[in-house]
């Protein structure tokens, strides 16, 4: 039994495992942000990322500097910031929904660079070349 317990204890999570955990959650959040169609869904993913960053602080506090409580205090402030962010985000999405009737992010691209027709070098040069040819019609010799 002890031997079993000892073998289990061997897998105890060191600092590395904890940090691996936070980076996994962070990348899942990132994936969510980049693929989610609904704006609110994106904010969910953002919450996830911020939460993993806060966890990161607490981990470092626990492992690197247990004497102080900087990490935990930072985590508290992160939570507060996340709250503020959600408030503003949600306000904007609600206003947008009321006006546009949708919060689908893919449809929110009214503002983009108008890819105008983009003429090749000859066309651009054309106006200049016309000017040249006009200048050099074979004029009669004296």
């Amino acid at each position, binding site marked *: 039994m002890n031997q079993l317990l000892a073998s*289990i*204890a061997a897998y*105890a*999570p060191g*600092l*590395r*495992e904890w*940090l691996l*955990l936070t980076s*996994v*959650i*962070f*990348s*899942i959040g*990132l*994936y969510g942000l*980049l*693929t989610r*169609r*609904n*704006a*609110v*869904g994106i*904010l*969910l*993913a953002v*919450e*996830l990322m911020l*939460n993993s960053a806060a*966890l990161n602080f*607490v981990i470092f506090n*626990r*492992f*690197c*500097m*247990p*004497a102080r*409580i900087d*990490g*935990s*205090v930072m*985590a*508290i*402030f992160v*939570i*507060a*910031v*996340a709250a*503020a962010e*959600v*408030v*503003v985000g*949600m*306000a904007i*999405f*609600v*206003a947008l*929904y*009321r006006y546009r009737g949708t919060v689908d992010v*893919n449809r929110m691209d009214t503002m983009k660079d108008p890819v105008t027709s983009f003429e090749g070098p000859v066309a651009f040069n054309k106006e200049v070349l016309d000017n040249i040819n006009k200048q050099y019609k074979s004029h009669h010799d004296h």
Partner: protein
Amino acid sequence: MIGPAIYTVMFWVVAASTVLFALAVVNTRKLLRAAIALMAALSTTAGFYVMLDAQFLAGVQVLVYVGGIVVLIVFAIMLTRSGELLEDHPTPERRVVGAAISIMFLILSAAAVWVSPFAEYSTGKTPPNDALSIGKALLDPGPGGYVAPFEVISLLLLAAMIGGIVIARKTPPPNQPFTSGGDLPGETDVYTPLSQRDPKRGGPVS
């Protein structure tokens, strides 16, 4: 002896559940279900805080984060009525790109973190993590204290609230006076020539 084993088992179980919940948050098509998955993920993180001897923080996490923010998000889902209909799938190339980037990020950050020598200091002494010390730290003007961020975060929350209110409120019915000028429904964005404008609004005083 039992402690560390239980500790390890608990860590791996909770870690696995957090990852699963996170994946659920990201992939479920029904948004409400995603919100609930987020609640679960955040509570498991609270569990982590407990394991990391940050009991007060776990409480704050559960109370504020899960109880407050995610509830707010659920309100938002309700308001934007995006909970009812199934969210359609992201475009395939968006999904591939997103996946590629996040996996790349995972590999890079994990590798970076895995090999780097952090300032490990494991004397085992647990940090003074009870509410008293955090409370004192928050308001202590001395070197160790965080009174400045405390003040700033209050400003931030106030500003965010004001901003949110201004953006998200409904404009009142026409007959009701409204406190802010220039916002009355009567003012359309039709360009009224200078001559027909009423003097109060910058027109010529006849």
